[in-house]
């Protein structure tokens, strides 16, 4: 009886989800059709606004790295007590973990910043031929600053990650791997015990589920844009390719573990 009730609840939830998705899709389609004529101008306006921030796109990266460095220093400060005291150990581990998360987020952000900044510089280069000497000087200074910011952030990220991993190894002496080595993730995983490997599995599964929401959402947006001729085939292939890689990678690995000859996690 309980099982049957649960099953009908699941069916009802599925039907409601389908109806809501259909309604949202319909509304999106109508909106896209209405905006169709104005959309190219609106998109160009949004792109201009995004590009106008120029090198300011590097600012969030510097903030992430500053906060990450503070967490690293606060974690490192606890290392002497962490040897003996279990609560200090947990707190030091937590702070170092946050430092690593922030430095990884900084790594992704630096690529976002460099991409948008290069796009903005490219647009300026186009204008340079019309703008004259003053614009040329400004554009050159911006290009130099872009390189300086990029190098500064990459060096900061690598240094912060190396220092954080080094400090983590003080409280986890069994851990192996160097951030400067391409085999770092493999070495680190192999030095993890059963509980840590289970946590890695849980984190991977969480990310898999998250991406299984984000990829379809991104694809729906692209399909809506395609209906008004605003989605480039390359974007659709890129998102579709990433989605495919994630799904086939996950399920292929599951198949390999179940039915493959080699059962080691590679």
């Amino acid at each position, binding site marked *: 009886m309980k099982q049957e009730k649960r099953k009908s609840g699941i069916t009802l939830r599925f039907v409601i989800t389908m109806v809501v998705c259909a309604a949202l899709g319909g509304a999106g389609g109508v909106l896209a059709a209405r905006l169709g004529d104005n959309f190219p101008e609106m998109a160009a306006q949004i792109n201009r606004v995004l590009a106008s921030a120029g090198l300011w796109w590097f600012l969030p990266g510097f903030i992430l790295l500053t906060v990450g460095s503070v967490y690293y220093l606060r974690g490192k400060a606890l290392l002497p007590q962490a*040897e*003996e005291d*279990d609560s200090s*150990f*947990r707190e030091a*581990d937590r702070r170092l973990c946050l430092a690593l998360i922030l430095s990884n987020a900084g790594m992704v952000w630096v690529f976002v910043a460099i991409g948008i900044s290069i796009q903005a510089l490219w647009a300026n280069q186009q204008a340079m031929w019309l703008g004259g000497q003053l614009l040329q000087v400004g554009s050159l200074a911006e290009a130099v600053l872009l390189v300086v910011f990029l190098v500064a952030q990459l060096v900061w990220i690598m240094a912060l990650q190396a220092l954080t991993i080094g400090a983590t190894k003080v*409280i*986890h002496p*069994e851990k192996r791997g160097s951030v400067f080595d391409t085999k770092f993730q493999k070495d680190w995983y192999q030095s*993890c*015990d*059963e*509980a*840590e490997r*289970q946590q890695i599995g849980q984190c991977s599964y969480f990310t898999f589920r998250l991406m299984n929401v984000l990829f379809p959402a991104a694809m729906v947006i692209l399909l809506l844009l395609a209906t008004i001729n605003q989605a480039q085939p390359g974007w659709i292939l890129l998102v579709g390719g990433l989605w495919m890689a994630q799904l086939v990678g996950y399920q292929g690995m599951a198949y390999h573990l179940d039915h493959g000859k080699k059962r080691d996690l590679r």
Partner: protein
Amino acid sequence: MPLGNRLKELRAAKGLNQQALGTLVGASRQTISLIERGDYNPSITLALRIAKVFGTTVDQVFYLTEEDDL
């Protein structure tokens, strides 16, 4: 988590910290901490190793805290 344990008590009696116990049983300090807090159920192998360090049996270290549905 239905699995309780007397790990902290046994560790204190033997004068071992989490790191030392982890080294003896081949687990990380983090894992010992997780087991003690009831956030991780160890494998049979690890449970047996832990019991062996304390010279006792697994059921003297770990116990069920709730009635199982089965």
